[in-house]
């Protein structure tokens, strides 16, 4: 009996589990539901992935890879190390403290000869010329004459050009023989290596980049604030007017937004130059004399005016989209409870527009920091931004490593500011539209 009871208990206890193990819930085709479900979701996931794949590849190929490739150049430059193998080997074994002996010069002669044959001497010369200005022709002309060089090479090469007997040049070559270097970051922050390899500031007259970074950030912040002051009432008007008026006004905001940047910039030149419409009007009405025409273009004012105008829609649109969602009843309620119009605005209305303000300021600021065409056209000498110098190194001096270092620093500053913004205001609070 007890046996039976035990048996029953046993069966009762075990059976449901047994059943679950032996006969799992299955799909219609007999495969376990869990497996079928996983398969189905995997399929859906794959389909979704395949759909976004073109965009992902596009972004990867046209955006991510080029940026990584470009940023790599800021610390990696193998122009010297890849083309001067003998010297690289020599520098590995010998620390340069004074002008080297015959062995070093023999390596130099062999490399110059090789570089001449491979047509890479220009690349090498350019790399060294970044740090020792004027050494370019020293390399190219020495390379042209290497065929006639006879040992002892030290005397022969120094006879070509006394500057080969300069320890600074050899220091630079040793540093350049390592493709990874901080030289470009140093240069991008107005510093350089001195004869002993210590980091020092460049001559005061040549300091330019730090000042320009600061200028760029201040100018961009200024432009963002001017945009905010100008855009706030406009956005408010747009959000509160009856639809048929606000639509018309919206067209006035969007029309310039759709117009080409160059057209708008040149229009500002025509308006504001010293013989332009604005000055003509002032002179015509006798407000100012013909000799005292205002210089509004080709300086910082020009940059600020043109950029404010161009970036204004980027402030109006996020503000508008936020203000549109604020019920007018809140302000009315505040007024009816006795708040003055200022208190109602400042305590009730304004706090609700903060997500729009945050988005607009951040958007305008970041766009302004990277602006380049407008300051180039109307900035003259005082209205230049760091991006103009990056463009200069990309296009004119062809020192891409320097451009990359400047770009990396700018990117870093923006990321820090973005992080700060997230800490202070919170990025989730941002509303772009």
């Amino acid at each position, binding site marked *: 009996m007890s046996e039976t009871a035990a048996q029953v208990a046993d069966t009762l206890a075990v059976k449901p589990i047994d059943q679950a193990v032996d006969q799992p819930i299955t799909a219609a085709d007999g495969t376990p539901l869990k497996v079928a479900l996983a398969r189905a979701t995997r399929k859906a996931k794959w389909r979704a992935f395949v759909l976004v794949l073109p965009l992902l590849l596009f972004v990867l190929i046209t955006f991510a890879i080029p940026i990584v490739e470009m940023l790599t150049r800021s610390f990696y430059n193998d122009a010297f190390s890849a083309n001067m193998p003998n010297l690289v080997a020599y520098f590995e074994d010998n620390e340069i403290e004074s002008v080297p002996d015959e062995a070093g010069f023999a390596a130099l002669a062999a490399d110059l000869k090789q570089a001449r044959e491979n*047509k*890479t*001497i*220009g*690349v090498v*010369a*350019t790399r060294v*010329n*970044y740090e020792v*200005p*004027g*050494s*370019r*022709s020293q390399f*190219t002309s020495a390379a042209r004459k290497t065929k006639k060089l006879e040992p002892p090479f030290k005397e022969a090469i120094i006879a070509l050009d006394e500057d080969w007997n300069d320890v600074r040049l050899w220091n630079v070559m040793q540093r350049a023989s390592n493709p990874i270097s901080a030289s470009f970051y140093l240069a991008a922050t107005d510093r350089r290596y001195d004869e002993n390899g210590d980091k020092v500031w460049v001559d005061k*007259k*040549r*300091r*330019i980049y730090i*000042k*320009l970074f600061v*200028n760029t950030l201040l100018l961009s912040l200024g432009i963002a604030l001017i945009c905010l002051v100008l855009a706030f009432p406009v956005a408010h008007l747009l959000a509160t007017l009856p639809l048929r008026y606000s639509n018309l006004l919206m067209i006035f905001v969007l029309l310039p937004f759709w117009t080409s940047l160059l057209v708008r910039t040149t229009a500002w030149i025509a308006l504001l*130059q*010293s*013989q332009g419409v604005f000055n003509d009007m002032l002179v015509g009405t006798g407000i100012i004399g013909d000799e005292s025409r205002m210089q509004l273009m*080709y300086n910082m004012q020009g940059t600020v005016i043109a950029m404010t105008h161009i970036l204004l829609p980027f402030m109006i649109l996020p503000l508008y989209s936020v203000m549109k969602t604020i019920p007018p009843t809140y302000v009315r309620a505040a007024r009816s409870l006795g708040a003055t119009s200022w208190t109602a605005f400042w305590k009730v209305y304004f706090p609700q527009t903060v997500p729009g303000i945050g988005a607009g300021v951040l958007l305008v600021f970041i766009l302004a920091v990277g602006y380049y065409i407008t300051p*180039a056209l109307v900035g*003259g*000498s*005082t209205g*230049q931004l760091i991006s103009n*110098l990056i463009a*200069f190194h*990309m*296009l*004119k*001096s*062809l*020192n891409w490593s320097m451009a990359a270092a400047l770009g990396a620093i700018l990117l870093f500053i923006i990321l820090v500011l973005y992080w700060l913004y997230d800490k202070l205001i919170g990025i989730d609070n941002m509303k772009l539209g």
Partner: protein
Amino acid sequence: MKLKTLFTTTAVSAAVMVASSAMAGEITVMSWGGAYTKSQTEAYYKPWEAETGHKVNSVDSDNPATPIKAQVEAGNVSIDVADIEYSDAIRLCDEGLLEEIDTSSLPAAPDGTAATADFIEGAITDCAVANIVWSTVFAYDSSKISGDAPTTLADFYDTAKYPGKRGMRKAAKANMEMALIADGVAPADVYSVLETEEGVQRALDKMATIKDDIIWWEAGAQPPQLLADGEVAMTTAYNGRIFNAAIGEDKPFEIVWDGQILDFDLYAVPKGAPNKELAMEFITYATATERLAAQASWIAYGPARKSSADLVGLFNDGKTEMAPHMPTAPANMKTALVNNYEFWADRDSELSEQFNAWLLAN
């Protein structure tokens, strides 16, 4: 027998060449825009298209040398021929960014002088062939100047005597030389002075005396516009642009030749150009004696071949004699300075950096 074989191979290869060139191709030529591109279109592109059936796709840039490095490094070259300055030609060639040009393919002068002897000294390099000699000069609007007309570079810097803004190219090159000449350095000594720290400082200091009055330009078409708008009283400019505004458009502009900086413009082929063969053919065609002379009837730049000089006649208005307007005319050459290309290939980046720093300093 051997001679016959030689003839046959020559004939066959000639036939192949004719056949291949008979297939209409298209090349992209990048130049400096405005009146200058126009002169090349009339003198080179159009006749070449008419004779060969190929097409020239003309594009412009503020400086055609600048896109070359980016295009070659990215392996995406779209320019077949670029019109570039001397120091850029040397620099890009040294860095392996240009194709080499076979100078033996350049046609001889009509009198049989070999091309290498016919071109002005230095006009042919490993990777580029010059088409014109141009110069940076300064010019003024004579209707706005009362009293003595400016005659020297020192007058350009004299804002007390000649009030008004000054236009200058936003670059170190040519400005620094002109500043030194204005400061009293003899043209022959300019580069030895500019090689020293003090010399560079002296040039910058000289420019600083009028810094607040300078309006900076970047594209060659801007200075005539700045003068015409009355934005500047005087401006440095490429001499051909001023000539075309003055003679071609009847503007009251005058060129001052004192301390002009002479330079070559050269044709070069970027490494990996999509239509390299055709590009070489084009250069051979465009730099022949009569083509170079023809360009001079469209803009006041001197042809790079000696044999072209005699063929230079009238401007395309049919009445203006071109010879006295050429930068190479003896009367204009008295205080001229020939741009030292090696100096600039060496020091362009350094001086540009100092120039930029100076520009930004207040």
